[in-house]
């Protein structure tokens, strides 16, 4: 029986207490039930929540996992990240496409299946991967793709595609995923054994100011990549006036090639939630929100359960960890948008809007979620916080380098024999990391994902830390058979798709760079094109509104720095003052074809 649109919307709005800032949850719920958020549903949401139709439509059109047009019963999203492409994405996508008889982006005539491509889903260590609804399917091959379709046709239950459960909590009854952790090197800090409840209790024995001091003494800096000192961030939020404050945990791990937060959320969720609780205690917040990317929806029930247990164990809720302090956490689901990893876009999303980043100032610490002082911390940063409280600032900061205390989790994938998560002290040389993961033939490395930089062998002696090669944790390794320009091109396609489009330099610049690279790759580039790339990059860096546009040119700019000779073999001056970008045969090909066709007809 088809559920009535009105009933579905009513129920969804009721479940969030008719709070208009919870529009994301409402839209997600409607999408889940109706396969889309059609105009009738938008009208109903408008009536129920008193938000404008424009806001609903704007939100629905923004997120990749939401759609106005009702879609198919099974949505298969094949991950087309660079790593998946190295691992056979093309064959897998073609197999899905052939088996279903639809192209990418298509829906079968009976409305049972739709096939889409999607950006990195955080499974680069077990690529090629895909999502079937919320179910993650890893290590795909063309044959496996055909089986997936056959099985879904036979039983219609995506969960039954999971044959062998992954290790650790991936096998937990509330997870039941085939995902493997691939923890290759656990270190003494983040991926160490946890003593549940200890950090929160220790924090509660200190004053909030002392907690902040401990974090500052440990010299903890944000692990998302930018490296802002966590203690200072907290101090600002603590000092900001406001009775209501928030701690947001950024679990929107979307940087292509990153998956370490997936592992932390699977195996160390208590450490993450403890970190949020401690942050709340330190800044004077009673509420926390974990923003979980839609691709990790398979972890949601499990994480809710962990939260429930923390409540029943007195680690969340009233008077925890001591009288007068209360703290609770809710999970906010994302809906497929890389830019929501940007903290102000994440806040917008939490408030029920499209993920357009905000103008700054005001900064979140002054005016963030719901207009209140807010800290947004990375999953790994919060784990570090917990660990600092568990075993002290000194134990934390004795590892790593002067400016970069502690350890860093690296998500390593690509052309390596041992892809997975590695915890290494800051200051570790890149070449040591390569030796660890078996990247013997490494020729190019994407450090920090596409928004980071592409480096070549000349940089392998450099070290992973904030003052040398900074990274949010992604390390994608490419061997000598790969073409850095093609990698850069794939990453530019990603940024073009994921830019929110708000500001000119990012909205247009990514497209221009992607097209420019295509021209160079086709052997139609001139030296002046490379100068233009640099000029566009410089403008994007300085004038874009948020971190996305301020870094998204990096695939081009850094590959140009590290592999300039590869560009230079492709670009030339054309003779006779001609532009190499124009090719007469290409430009007349269509007319030639039409004339030939016309000739046949007559």
């Amino acid at each position: 029986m088809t559920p009535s649109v009105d009933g579905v919307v009513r129920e969804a709005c009721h479940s969030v207490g008719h709070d208009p800032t919870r529009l994301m949850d409402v839209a997600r719920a409607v999408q889940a039930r109706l396969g889309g958020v059609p105009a009738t549903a938008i009208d109903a949401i408008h009536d129920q929540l008193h938000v404008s139709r424009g806001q609903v439509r704007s939100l629905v059109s923004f997120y990749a996992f939401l759609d106005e047009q009702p879609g198919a019963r099974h949505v298969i999203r094949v991950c087309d990240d660079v790593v998946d492409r190295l691992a056979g994405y093309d064959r897998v996508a073609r197999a899905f496409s052939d088996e279903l008889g639809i192209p990418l982006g298509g829906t079968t005539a009976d409305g049972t299946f739709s096939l889409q491509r999607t950006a990195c889903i955080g499974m680069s260590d077990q690529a090629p991967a895909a999502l079937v609804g919320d179910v993650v399917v890893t290590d795909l091959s063309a044959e496996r793709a055909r089986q997936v379709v056959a099985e879904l046709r036979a039983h219609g239950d995506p969960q039954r595609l999971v044959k062998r459960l992954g290790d650790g909590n991936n096998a937990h009854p509330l997870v039941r995923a085939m995902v493997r952790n691939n923890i290759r090197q656990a270190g003494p800090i983040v991926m160490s054994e946890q003593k549940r409840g200890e950090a929160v209790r220790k924090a509660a024995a200190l004053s909030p100011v002392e907690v902040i001091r401990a974090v500052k003494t440990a010299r903890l800096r944000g692990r998302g990549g930018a490296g802002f000192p966590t203690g200072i961030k907290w101090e600002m939020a603590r000092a900001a006036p406001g009775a209501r404050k928030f701690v947001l945990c950024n679990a929107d791990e979307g940087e292509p090639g990153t998956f370490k937060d997936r592992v932390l959320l699977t195996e160390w969720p208590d450490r993450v939630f403890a970190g949020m609780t401690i942050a709340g205690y330190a800044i004077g917040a009673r509420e926390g929100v974990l923003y979980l990317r839609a691709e990790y929806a398979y972890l949601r029930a499990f994480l809710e359960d962990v939260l429930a247990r923390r409540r029943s164990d007195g680690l969340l809720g009233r008077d925890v960890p001591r009288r007068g302090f209360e703290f609770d956490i809710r999970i906010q689901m994302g809906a497929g948008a890389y830019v929501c990893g940007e903290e102000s876009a994440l806040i917008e999303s939490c408030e029920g809007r499209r993920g357009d980043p905000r103008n700054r100032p005001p900064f979140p610490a002054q005016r963030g979620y719901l207009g209140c002082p807010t800290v947004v911390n990375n999953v790994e940063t919060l784990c570090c916080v917990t660990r600092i409280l568990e075993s002290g600032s000194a134990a934390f900061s004795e590892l790593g380098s002067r400016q970069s205390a502690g350890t860093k989790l690296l998500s390593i994938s690509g052309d390596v024999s041992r892809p997975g998560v590695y915890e290494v002290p800051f200051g570790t040389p890149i070449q040591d990391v390569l030796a660890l993961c078996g990247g013997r033939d490494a020729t190019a490395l994407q450090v920090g994902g596409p928004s980071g930089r592409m480096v070549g062998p000349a940089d392998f002696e450099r070290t992973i830390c904030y003052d040398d090669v900074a990274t949010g944790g992604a390390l994608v390794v490419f061997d000598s058979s790969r073409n850095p320009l093609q990698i850069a091109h794939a990453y530019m396609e990603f940024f073009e798709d994921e830019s929110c489009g708000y500001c000119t330099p990012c909205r247009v610049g990514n497209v221009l760079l992607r097209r420019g690279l295509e021209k160079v790759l086709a052997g139609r580039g001139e030296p002046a094109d490379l100068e233009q790339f640099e000029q566009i990059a410089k403008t994007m860096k300085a004038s874009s509104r948020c971190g996305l546009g301020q870094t998204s040119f990096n695939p081009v700019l850094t590959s140009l720095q590290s592999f300039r000779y590869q560009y230079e073999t492709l670009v030339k001056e054309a003779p006779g003052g001609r532009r190499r970008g124009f090719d007469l045969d290409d430009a007349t090909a269509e007319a030639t074809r039409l004339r030939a066709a016309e000739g046949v007809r007559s």
Partner: protein
Amino acid sequence: MSKPRVATTSLCGCFGCHMSLLDIDERILQLAEIVEFDKSPINDHKDFTQRCTVGLIEGGCANAENVHVLRRFREMCDVLVSVGDCATTGGIPALRNLVPLEECLQEAYLKGPSVHNPSARIPDDPEIPLLLDKVYPAHEVVKIDYHLPGCPPSADTLWEALNALLSGKPLALPYALLKYD
């Protein structure tokens, strides 16, 4: 000392820019004194007689012939100037860039409401230059040294620009002479 030579052409344009050049009125006598016109519709010379100092390009490139002429101009002229919006942006002919080429031809020769075409064929004589996939501004086909936008650029704009170029001065148009319409 021989006079500097000027060549002009209209590619995919409407000759409006050439008309604007004629619009310099009596100054055309002055112009005739200081320059010699080589290949140009003004004197109807069909091809270059020798290398030229300045080439003025009206119109963008819509077909293969436009491309050949433009390339020839680039080879034969020291300084090449895009004159008018069609040369600098593709202009009005580039409106067809928003429609697939096949649809354009069908509309023009087969399906358009005012079409009378008993042959029911799209003209395909080999003598007719092949259309390009889209209309290109001149600088996307060859290197262009200066751009004079306008539809057309005013006579004063053209006069100012020619004077500057022929006297070797930098070309900087005053505000009132830089217009896109």
